[in-house]
């Protein structure tokens, strides 16, 4: 087996929940920092974009790519890989940063983000980018595809797991709940949904657009193993993913990790800015953002 994979253990060997050690915390926090840094650089190339979402979701992406997913960086189509499905196509900026962090996309390629002929379009598409499993963007699709993949892999004897990243806005879509029912009906214990609850959608705060709460009770009532955590707390994320992994099985309850996150997390300038789905950042602010990000990360690391 190649040595440059994040996790390449035989998937049949079920790993029991391991302790959230300082080493794991440090490793994932550092990865999240780099993902945020990449996202700011990519945002600067475009002059604007979904930087707020990328910063908010960086800890989730770092945890799943850095600690949970079984994949081969040099062979993104490896049959036995775990699948990570990004339904929220506009989060691609964060996903590309995670793919770079994982060694699937070269870091130097990130500067092509959203440019003509780039493999990294503004909205994520499987037909463009290695490691991108589906074309998201039309919201509410990801979990339905994930159900099919989970069924398909299970019936072919694969023990790979399927992770679907979705946003709280996608909980507006009826198809998400069709899929939630389907996953429970078919007992897709190999499926884990991770929902970024940043409480913000295109037209404003989620509770003013279409109230989705109580979210935890909804997923529980659909029969899913449901956890809700601070999605910007790496320790809490690791523990939640460990719990989900511990009960993942070919036939069993699907699991969901509801992650409350903060748009712009890690950059106070953006955290405190009026929240917007599509955040405008002035030309002179990118460097300030990077400096604030680094100061915050180093301050926390040395504390």
């Amino acid at each position: 087996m190649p040595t440059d994979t994040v996790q390449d253990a035989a998937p049949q060997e079920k790993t029991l929940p391991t302790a959230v050690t300082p080493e794991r915390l440090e490793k994932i926090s550092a990865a999240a920092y780099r993902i945020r840094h990449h996202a700011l650089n990519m945002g600067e190339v475009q002059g604007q974009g979904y930087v707020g979402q990328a910063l908010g979701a960086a800890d989730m992406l770092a945890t799943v790519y850095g600690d949970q997913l079984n994949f081969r960086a040099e062979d993104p189509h490896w049959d036995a890989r775990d699948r990570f499905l990004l339904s929220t196509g506009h989060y691609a900026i964060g996903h590309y940063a995670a793919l770079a962090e994982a060694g699937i996309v070269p870091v130097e390629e990130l500067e092509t983000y959203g440019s003509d002929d780039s493999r990294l379009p503004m909205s994520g598409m499987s037909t463009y980018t290695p490691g991108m499993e589906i074309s998201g963007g039309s919201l509410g699709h990801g979990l339905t595809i994930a159900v099919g993949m989970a069924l398909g892999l299970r019936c072919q004897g694969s023990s790979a797991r399927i992770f679907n990243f979705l946003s709280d806005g996608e909980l507006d879509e009826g198809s998400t709940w069709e899929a939630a029912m389907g996953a429970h009906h078919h007992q897709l214990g190999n499926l884990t949904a991770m929902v970024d609850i940043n409480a913000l959608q295109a037209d404003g705060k989620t509770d003013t657009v279409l109230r989705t709460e109580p979210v935890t009770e909804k997923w529980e009532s659909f029969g899913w193993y449901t956890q809700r955590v601070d999605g910007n707390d790496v320790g809490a994320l690791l523990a939640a993913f460990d719990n989900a992994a511990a009960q993942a099985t070919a036939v069993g309850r699907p699991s969901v990790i509801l992650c409350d996150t903060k748009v712009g997390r890690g950059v106070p300038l953006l955290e405190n800015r009026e929240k917007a789905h599509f955040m405008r950042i002035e030309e002179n602010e990118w460097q300030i953002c990077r400096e604030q990000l680094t100061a915050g990360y180093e301050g926390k690391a040395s504390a």
Partner: protein
Amino acid sequence: MSTTTEAPDTAAAAAPPAKPKLKTSAMIASFADPGQKTSNAPFGHALVNAAQENDKIVGLTADLGKYTDMHIFAQAFPERFFQMGMAEQLLFGAAAGLAETGLVPFASTYSVFAARRAYDFLCLDAAEPNLNVNIVGGLPGLTTGYGPSHQATEDMAIFRGMPNLTIVDPCDSIDIEQAVPQLAASEGPTYLRLLRGNVPTVLDEYDYTFELGKAKVLRGGNDVVFISSGLMTMRALQAAKALAAHNVDVAVVHTPTIKPFDAETVLKEINTDRLAVTLENHSVVGGLFETVASAVVTAGVGKRVVPIGLPDQFLDAGALPTLHDRYGLSVDRIVAKVLSELG
């Protein structure tokens, strides 16, 4: 409903006893003529046969297994069949997911639900990545008397705009039996306009085999050329026989693949002095007629083409024989139309 064709009984008190009205349930399971040779559930049996050869084939449905002949496959391969419930977005999203793992899904529901309700999922999850997802749509065109909720009169119009999608409109059980393995073998997504239940067997009387992407000349004729697809090819063949009694010699060209369309074969047949008529179980908007018309215009052929198809309107509920006659799909109406065109 037009009151001129269906006068209320109360208005005819003094009139002689009216012919009993046909019931909607007439022909509910089959549009076969009385005594016609049929084959039961050809799609279900063809899928079972194909699945015996190809272990990647799986089947799924949205609570319409028994009504799309998918139950035959489900009984034969329970471990390769997935019931997705009455959730068409899930049905086709999951079909795409199954195809992503290397399987070859056939996903069935009614055409109205596939085309109208789940379009976005088929378009982006199956067609854009060009996955081998096979859509099986029951009740295409006017094959039910339930009214617009179930009559997919514009399904081909909706689907023709979807890049990568192959569209097949089979005539009979022979077409379906031969098409299924070819759909499984072809790359990319396909849409099959399913004929279910007791499906007429018609094309065995002709020197015919189904070839994906090919139109076939079923019979020659000097006066008229019919270009037809789906069950209208059966009607076209019947009308051609009936027109012979009027000394009208009719050729029939069957075009079961609507997209990609075999324009070469069709143009060769159209570009003659014969009266050219298209026949389809679909709205005259966006289906076979417009496919032929665009091929004719693109080739610069100056030729009039007469459409026989469903009108651009929401259709009545009722019994299929009544409705087919009302909307011009019956053999009698085809014959009358051709005779009037020939003057």
